[in-house]
C-alpha cells in the first residue's frame, strides 16, 4: 500500500472514530423509524422498574435482549451515563478488526499476482 493509500485508509478510520466517539452525543434520542412503528398505539412512561408501555402496540411483544447484561449494552460502558462515545470507539475498533480478519481470510490466495504496480502481495 502506497503512502496515499495508507493516508486515505487512516483518514477513513479517523472519520469513523470521530463520528462514533464524538458526534454520537448529538444523536437524536427519539425512537427510530422501526421503533416508532412498534410503539404505535402505546404510551411510554418511565417507572422505577424500567419502561412501561400502556395501550396496544407491537413492542409489547418484544423480549429483553439475551445480551442485555453486556458491559456495552445500550451503547454505554458498564451502564454509565455519558460513555456513549467510548462505547462507540470500542465498537468501531471491534467492527474494523472483525472486518479486517474476515476479508483477509476471504481474499483469494495468490491474487497478489495481479496487484497494481507498487503494491506488494500479501501486504496491505
Amino acid at each position: 500500500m502506497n503512502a496515499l493509500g495508507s493516508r486515505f485508509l487512516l483518514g477513513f478510520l479517523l472519520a469513523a472514530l470521530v463520528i462514533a466517539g464524538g458526534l454520537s452525543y448529538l444523536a437524536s434520542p427519539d425512537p427510530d423509524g422501526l421503533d416508532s412503528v412498534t410503539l404505535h398505539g402505546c404510551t411510554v412512561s418511565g417507572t422505577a422498574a424500567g419502561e412501561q408501555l400502556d395501550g396496544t402496540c407491537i413492542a409489547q411483544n418484544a423480549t429483553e435482549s439475551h445480551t442485555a447484561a453486556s458491559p456495552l449494552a445500550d451503547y454505554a460502558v458498564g451502564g454509565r451515563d455519558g460513555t456513549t462515545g467510548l462505547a462507540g470507539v470500542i465498537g468501531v475498533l471491534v467492527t474494523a478488526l472483525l472486518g479486517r480478519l474476515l476479508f483477509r481470510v476471504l481474499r483469494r490466495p495468490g491474487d497478489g499476482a495481479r496487484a497494481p504496480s507498487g503494491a506488494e502481495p500479501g501486504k496491505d
Partner: protein
Amino acid sequence: MGAMNTAMHMSDGLVNAPTAAVFGLVAAAGLAIAASRARADLDERTAPMAGLVTAFVFAVQMINFPILPGASGHLLGGALVAILVGPWVGSLCIAIVLVVQALLFADGGLTALGTNITNMALVGTFTGYAIAWALRRFAARSRTGLLVTAFVAALVNTVVASLAFVLEYAVGGAGGAGLETVFALMVGLHVLVGIGEGIITAATVAAVAAVRPDLVYLLRGTRPALTLRTPGTGAAR
C-alpha cells in the same frame, strides 16, 4: 431498561419463532453465497477498504437524525456499502455490524438476527446495488451523476428494507397493530429516513470518489471521468 432509546433494530419477539427461524436460514444462506462471491472482489486494495467501510457503517448508524417530532432515523448502509465495495462484500460488512451490535451492544435480538440481516444486509444492500448498477453510466459521467445515483439508491434501499419488515410481520408478526397500519407507517417513515440515508450516502461516496475513485466499486470498468488531479500527489499514485 432504557433500551428503547438506543435500540435501532428488531428485538426478539416481534415475529414468532418459526418466522424468526425461517429468516435465520434465509440470512445464513444469503451470507454463505455472499462469502463465496466476495472472494473475487477482494484484493490487496479492496480488503482493507472493506474492513474500514464496516467500521464506518457502525459509526454512522449511531447517529440518529430527527425525521419528525418524536421520531428519528439512522443509516442502514446498504447502498453505501454496495457502491463502495460491491454487494457481496457489502452485505458481509453490514452483517458484521449487525452481529456486533446484537452481541456486544444488546441492539437487535439474537433470534431477530436473521430478520435484521435479511432486511438490512441482504435486501437493503442488493436493492441499493440494483438501483446504483442501473444508473452506473449516469454515475460515471459527472460528480452530480454520482451524487444523484447514491442518493436515489440509498432512498430506495431504505424503503425496500422497511418493506421486508412488513413482509416478516405479515408472515408471522406477534400482533399489536394491523398489517395495513404497519405498512403505511413503515413506508411513510422510511421515505423520510431514506432522505437522510440518501444525503449521508451521497456525501460519503462523493468524498471517497474525490480522493480515491479507484476504490469506488460502482465506477470500476466505467470511464474514469471522475479522476481528480490532486496537486502534489500525482506521483504517489
